[in-house]
C-alpha cells in the first residue's frame, strides 16, 4: 500500500446550489478553483474559516454537514479538521476571541502569567466567555510567533511581547 490514496469522495443526491447563500457559494467556489478538480476537499480549511466568520465566530454541525455535501466529502472528515485546529470553535463565542499561546517559548516568557491574569481579572477559564459576552478566552498551541514570545492572537491580529498590563490595554479597547 502507498501513501497516496485519492481522497474518498462521497457524492450525494442533494442540491448543492441550495446550500448557504450565493455570496458564500461564490467565495467557496473561488477557493475550490485553487486546487486540482479531484482535490476539491483541499478547500475545507479556508471554507470552514469563511463559514465560521459568517456565523458569529463558531461552527454548527449543520454548517459542517452542509460543507461536507458541498465539497463531496464524508461528514466525519470535516469534523476531523474542525476539531483538530484551535482556530475553529464548535460552541457559541463572545464578540471577540483572546487566544493566548500556551506552548513552550511563550510559557518560558510569561504566558502563564497572562493566563492567570485573565482568569482572575475577568473571571473566565480557558474556553469560557466573559459574562458580558465581550470576549471568549482561549488557550492555543504555538502561534508561530515564538521569537517575540509571549504572543496573543486577538481576533485576527497578532500581538507580541505582551505583559499583563499591555494585554489589559488591548482588552480595554474591545467593545
Amino acid at each position, binding site marked *: 500500500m502507498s501513501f497516496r490514496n485519492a481522497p*474518498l469522495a462521497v457524492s450525494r443526491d442533494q442540491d448543492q446550489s441550495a446550500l448557504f447563500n450565493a455570496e458564500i457559494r461564490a467565495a467557496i467556489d473561488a477557493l475550490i478553483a485553487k486546487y486540482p478538480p479531484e482535490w476539491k476537499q483541499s478547500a475545507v480549511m479556508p471554507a470552514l474559516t469563511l463559514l465560521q466568520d459568517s456565523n458569529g465566530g463558531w461552527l454548527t*454541525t449543520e454548517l459542517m454537514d452542509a460543507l461536507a455535501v458541498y465539497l463531496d466529502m464524508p461528514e*466525519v472528515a470535516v469534523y476531523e479538521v474542525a476539531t*483538530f485546529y484551535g482556530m475553529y470553535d464548535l460552541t457559541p463565542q463572545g464578540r471577540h476571541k483572546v487566544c493566548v499561546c500556551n506552548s513552550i517559548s511563550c510559557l518560558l516568557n510569561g504566558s502563564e502569567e497572562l493566563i492567570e491574569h485573565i482568569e482572575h481579572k475577568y473571571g473566565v477559564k480557558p474556553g469560557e466567555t466573559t459574562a458580558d459576552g465581550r470576549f471568549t478566552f482561549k488557550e492555543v498551541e504555538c502561534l508561530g510567533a515564538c521569537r517575540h514570545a509571549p504572543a496573543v492572537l486577538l481576533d485576527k491580529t497578532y500581538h507580541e511581547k505582551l505583559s499583563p498590563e499591555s494585554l489589559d490595554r488591548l482588552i480595554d479597547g474591545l467593545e
Partner: protein
Amino acid sequence: MTDKLTIEIDGRACEATPGEMIIAVADREGIVIPRFCYHQKLSIAANCRMCLVEAEQGGRPFPKPVPACATPVGNGMKVWTRSPKAIEAQQGTMEFLLINHPLDCPICDQGGECELQDVAMGYGDDVSRFVERKRVVKDEDLGPLIATEMTRCIHCTRCVRFCAEIAGVRELGATGRGEEVRIGTFVAHAVTHELSGNVIDLCPVGALTSKPYRFTARAWELTARDGIAPHDSVGSNLRLHVRGQRVMRVHPRDNEAVNETWIADRDRFSYAGLDSLDRLTAPLLKEDGVWRTVDWSEALTRVAERLKSADPAETGWLMAPNATLEECYLAARIARELGCPHIDHRLRQQDFRSDDADPLVPWLGLPIAELEVQRCVLLVGSDLRQEQPLLAHRLRKAVLDGAQMICINPIRLDLNHPARQIVGTPAAMIADLAAIAKRLGVSATGALKDCIAVSEPGDEHDMAADCLSRMGEQGRGLILLGALATAHPDFSLLKALAHAIAEASNCRIGYLPAAANSVGAYLAGAHPQRLPGARPTDQPGLSLGGMLAAPRRTLVLWGLEPDRDLGNPAGAMAAFDKADFVVACSAFRSPSLERVADVLLPIGAFAETSGTFVNAAGLWQRFQGAVPPPGEARPGWKVLRVLGNLLDLKGFDYRDGAQVRDELAALCADAVIDNAVRGEFPLTNGPTESALMRIGPVPIYALDPLVRRAPALQQMTMPGSAFGVYLHPDQAADLGLNAGDTVRLTQNEATATAQVILDDRVPMGCARIPSGVAGSEGLGDQIGPISLARLTESDTGERR
C-alpha cells in the same frame, strides 16, 4: 522501475523492489519490527512511531531514527532494528503510548492476544515515569457486533482507514487533537457495513472487541480449528476458536485467492446460531400428530422402509445449497439408486424452462481474485453487497481502479462505489438487456429476436454496449447473474440475453452461486439433470418447479426450512402438506418442519461436521468438524451412509468422509466447469407482468437457518431487512397508501399482512417485500405479481 535492489537489515542482505518500504522487506525476510498502525492492506499512516529503526543511506546515517513503515528502500541502505539507538527510540515510543493507556489487561478481552501487550513486553521498558492522571474516553455505541472501550485506543487509525478504504464508508474518524483525540463516529450512529467486524481483528488493542464473544473466554483457553464459511459462495477461510465442545468465536484465516484477510460479518458471527434453543438433538417420529423421541435405529429403519416401499417416480429430494459435497453426493446416490432422479438444490429458482440448455456447472466464470482486474462489469439481478459481501469488495476494488460497473436490477442498490444503475421492473430488466443486445448487433432467432427487435436503446444502453465491447476485446469484460436474476420469473430469457450479449461483446459470463456449496451440488449430482461428476443424464428428473407442480408422495428435505428457504414458501408448504411421508434432516426444529415432516433426523450444522465446499470459483475446500454435534445429532454424511446400508445399497461402507470425497473427486476428474450453453434457450412466453410486481430479495442475515438464529446478526438493522412493503413514495401515493398503513398482500392463494414503508430505491410498478424473514412465510414467489389492499382498522380488528 522493476529492477531489484539490495539493502541490508541487521547485517543480512535482502532483496527489495524500489518504492517498497523497509517494513515490507523485513516482513518478507522474517525480521521482526514492532508496529501498530501499519497494515499490509491499508494505506500508510505512519502515526504510531512504533516501527522506528536506525538507518543509513550511502554511508550517511539518517539524523534520527526513521519509521520503517514509511521509509522507502534505497540501494545499499543499511538498517538496524535492534541497535541501541533503535531500541531507545522504541522504548520511548512505547512509554508514550502507555501514558494514557489504562493497563487494564486483567479485565480486557484482548488480554493474551494483544499487540500492545506483546510489543510492550518485547520492546518496552519495565517501569513508566508517568505519575499524572490518565485520561478517560467515553465509549461510542457501534452496534450489536462491536464492543468499544475507547480509553484503550492508541489512535493507530487502522479502523478509520479500514472503513474509508475497504468498507468504503467513512463512518469512523479521529476527531480532536493531541490528548483530546478520539476515535468515533462523532455524530453517533451504529456501523452497519457488512464487513464491519474486521475492525475487531485490525484493532491492535482491546478498544474494539467482539460484542457477542465479550467476557466469555480467554485467548489461552481456546483451540483453533480451521473451517470454511458456510454461507455465501466465497468459501471464506476461517479459524474457529473452540473451548471444550463449543465454538466461542470465529476469525478469518488468510487466503489471498479467496478472502484475502477479511471475512464478512455473516461468517464471523453466525456461529452463535449453533447455541440456538431449538437445536434438534434427537431423532423424532410423528405418530398421530404427536412427536416422540426415538433412537437412531428406530428412526432410520422407519425411513429406510418408507423409502424402499415408496414409488420412486413419486419421491423427491431437496437439498440445501450449503449442504456439504459429501452430503449432496451420498443423497444423490441414494435417490438415484432407489430409482428416483428427482433431486434438486436450486431452492430459490422459479423458472426451470432452460434446464436443457444451462451450462453444466454454472459458476463465477473466473478465479475470485480476477474480479479485481475486470474493466467493465454488467451486473444483472444482484443485490451484491447483501448476497456476496466479499465479491462485492473485489468488484469495488476494480471500480476504484477505473472499471465501469453497470447494474440492471429491480431495486436501486446502496453501493460504496460509483456505478451506472439501471433500475426497473422485472420486465424492464429484460427490455434493458435486449436494448444492450440490440446495440451490440446481436443476431438471434425466434422469441429472442422479437424481444430484441422491439427494444429501444437509450444513452445508457449505448454506453453499456460500448463499454462491454471495448473491454470484452481486451478480455476484461464480465457479465454476472445474481440471486435476483435466479429468482426472476423469466430467468431463461435473462440468461439467453446475457449469453447473447457476452458472445457479441467477447465478455465472460459468470453466475453468482446462491450459497457455499451451490457449485458443489452440481458436481455431486444433486440436480435432476446431472449425475455425479456433473455428467448429463438421459433420464432427467423433476426440478424443484416440477416437484411443486406435481406434489411428491414421499419427500426428503435436507438442511432447510420449507417456509423460509424456498423461493415460493406458500406453494412449497401446500405441496409438502400433500405428501404421505416426509423425512427432514435438519440441525434445527422449526414449526414449518414440524408441520410437514413425519420424521426429523438431527444432523450436525456448520462446524459440527467434516466435509467439502466448492466455492464460486470451483475451488474445493475441505474442512474437519471442530466440535461434536449436540446430543444425538450426527454428521450428515454418516446418517446417509447408515441409511445406504439399511437400504442394502452397494458401496456404502465408507470408512471416513475423505473416502466419500475421493470417490466423487475421481468422478469429477474430467468434469470441465465452464459456462458454455448446451443448446438453445427455449423461449416460450413467460408469466405476464401485473400492475404491481413483488421483488423479494433475501436480506443478508436471512440467508439460511444458521444465520437466522444468530442473535447479534438479527439485531442488526440492515437496510431493507425488516419485513414490510417497501414502496416508492409516488407508487404509494398512486395506491392511496401512506407509510405505516397495514396492507394485505395477495399472491394467488398466498397472503400475508405487512406495513407500508416508503423507499425511493424501489422502482415504480414494484413492491419490495423481503423473503426469508419472519412474516414472509405465507407468500408466494420471490418475484411475481402481487396485489395490495389496505386493511382498515375494522379489518384488522376482525382478524384478531
